[in-house]
């Protein structure tokens, strides 16, 4: 059966979902996600072991973090819009969507930086400080990497590298970006919300 099957005309190079590259990105996300699971595990473990109050200086405030969360979610939306655009071959939508995502991502990092500058503890203050800055910092680093990937893809979008069928890079980058946002939701819930409810 197999031989007759290959006698058929086969596409050269898988495209989008199910392609080797797509699988590669999925697996990368799986292992990256586990990394954040272990970081958050460490947060809750040390929290449960803490002798004093946890967090020592009360829950981190939401004044900046909450709007920042919204911004990141919006960027996900923009990314989705861009990607569904290229699937229809709408080059314009792709380019604009990517640019918006890029912008929102940069704003997120900027606000994050501002929030850092307001903190009156450092990573070396105590274990909580170490956890807070390491976890949010790691997420920030992932955002940065995502932004670089988006920048490259945007560039390629303007160079017209992508088509309805050929846009694996876009698919992958958007996968990664949605993942980074999902991670933020987990981080936000653990570090910012959970202390308020327990």
């Amino acid at each position, binding site marked *: *059966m*197999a*031989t007759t*099957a*290959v*006698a*058929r*005309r*086969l*596409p*050269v*190079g*898988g*495209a989008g979902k*199910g*392609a*080797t*590259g*797509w*699988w*590669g990105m999925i*697996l*990368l996300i*799986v*292992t*990256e996600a*586990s*990394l954040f*699971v*272990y*970081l958050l*595990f*460490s947060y809750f*473990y*040390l929290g449960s*072991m*803490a*002798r*004093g109050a946890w967090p*020592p200086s009360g829950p981190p405030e939401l004044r900046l973090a909450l709007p920042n969360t919204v911004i990141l979610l919006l960027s996900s939306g923009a990314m989705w819009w861009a990607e569904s655009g290229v699937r229809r071959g709408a080059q314009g939508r792709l380019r604009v969507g990517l640019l918006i995502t890029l912008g929102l991502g940069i704003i997120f990092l900027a606000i994050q930086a501002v929030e850092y500058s307001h903190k009156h503890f450092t*990573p*070396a203050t*105590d*274990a*909580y*400080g*170490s*956890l807070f800055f*390491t976890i949010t910092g790691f997420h920030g680093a992932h955002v940065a990497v995502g932004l*670089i990937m988006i920048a*490259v893809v945007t560039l*390629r979008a303007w*160079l017209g*590298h992508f088509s309805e069928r*050929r846009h*694996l*890079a876009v698919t*992958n980058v958007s996968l990664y970006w949605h993942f980074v946002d999902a991670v933020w939701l987990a981080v936000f819930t653990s570090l910012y919300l959970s202390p308020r409810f327990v």
Partner: protein
Amino acid sequence: MAATAPPAAPTPPLHERLLRIWETPPGLFGILGTVDHKKIGKRYLVTAFAFMLAGGLEAAVMRAQLTAPNQRLLSPETYNQLFSMHGITMIFLYASPILSGFSNYIWPLMLGSRDMAFPRLNALSYWLFLFSGLFIYSSFLVGQAPDRGWFAYAPLTEGAFSPGLHMDFYALGLLFLTVSTTVGAINFIVTLFKLRAPGMSINRLPIFIWGTLTTSFAVLFAMPSLTAACIMLYFDRRFGMHFFDAAGGGHPLLWQHLFWIFGHPWVYIVVLPAMGIMSDMIPTFCRRPLVGYTFVALATVSTGILGFGVWVHHMFATGLPDLSTDFFSAASMVITIPSAVAVFAWLATIWHGRPVLRTPFLFAAGFIVLFVIGGVSGVATAAVPFDRQLTDTYFVVAHLHYVLVGINVFPVIAGFYYWLPKMTGRMLNERLGRWNFWTMFLGFNLGFFPMHIAGLLGMPRRIYTYPAGLGWGTVNLVTSIGAYVFAVGVVLFLVNVLWSIRRGPPAGPNPWDAPTLEWATTSPPPAYNFEVLPSIGSRHPLWEDRLAEGAARSVLDRGPALDEGRETLGITPLDAEPSEILTMPEDSLYPFLLALSLLVTFYGLLTSVWALAIAGGVLVLAMTVGWLWPGPEPEAA
């Protein structure tokens, strides 16, 4: 665009054409730029084995110090670095990479493909492995090798109790190596999903494939735990953070949990592929299919999964509540069932087969016995109250060597005797092989069985010397003698390999009359593996006509030639129907350069020369972009 792939038959001109397409150009570019999975696989094997020799040498020196009480051969500083580097080398730089080596070389051949899914990532993971290994070993040059043991319990590793670079080499070196392992794991999984021969449905996979597949998934979930731990350790040491520092609100047990959540799955990661090698080899030498294929496949997968639920059995003495220790004790016993299944599958295969007593089989038989000895001592340590006596004694050292040497080293040596003829086209010496087996088997038991007794006599591990009068002298003397006999065995193996490369008799495509696909091509295989891509009709493509299993037949002599460039066949993951033609990447220097840039970064982090670290980071970025650019088909990266 699309291409037609009519079934073709092998012809000399086709052979020529494919060679021109697939062969790596000679010269420096070829050496640094090749993406051929066979070349990369061989490099993995040689490098990992070299590390094994280094780790063994360290052990040999340790054994000299421990031969008698109150020896002054080594200072405590030296001894502590030796045993730590021995463990780190064997676990991280030998046990796992050597199996990646076999998988790299064998997978595409076994699966009937022309390369791995991501040949360039494959090259990358090798360079990362080599460089991280050299990075860790460069610690000897500055006399500051890691000295806190392979599981490096905090707070002994914190800056306050471990000045100098020792443990920075450890934390950063392992982070570096992690990248390599993870990249490799992703590559194996995607290769399995997409690059099997048509018709190779999952119930037709060799157990070796199951082993490496399970291992690769385990890596994706377990490795990040080590990554997190090592990052925290580095931050604690360099930036005065407090993850493991009780005074600062951290906790030493956080390290132990993170390490063993990684560590226990890891010990199965370094044996499941090796057990797979055995499960495929034993049938070949017993002249019959494996008894209970499905059981063994399931046992492999379930061991991988259960392996995540037992880590606390390394922490029974840390004062955890009985309830939790009991749970992990039970889990540790449950996990023996899949192992038992595998053991009895092998026993049944031998019993109901016609064992051919050639060297690979001897090692397989020895492996079964050592596995069981190591396994049952594991069960003894799983019994909480008894473990509180056994833990951190030589009984545990005995356990870990019986399992690691028994289920990793023995299958690896067997694997060499089995597959080296495929790789070099020449057989190894049978008589020397038998000598090799007996010196290793007897030497090993002579050396390591007494460790159980030393442990039962109350001898703690990780001591650079011990007083006379406690009755530990004799067992240690015997252990040292056995260790050296074992070492001689290792040397005999090296001699045999050299002999075979020089004047070994030609092997021919299938010297063992084995059933799996890698034996369908010539030995050594051509750069393109298969002239026409085969399609699979059963679990034993080369035994079909004799076993008459079902109607389906594999087709090996006719199939798509895909000679319009570096191409191979892509399939649908589940039912293995051809779905696309994959264009494979050309050789490239980017993997090598990317790994090199990362090495720069890590030396920057090690020395706190941030400029260097950043420069390296920028280079990494540049290489990555260059690698993927402009590539209208990034999926072929």
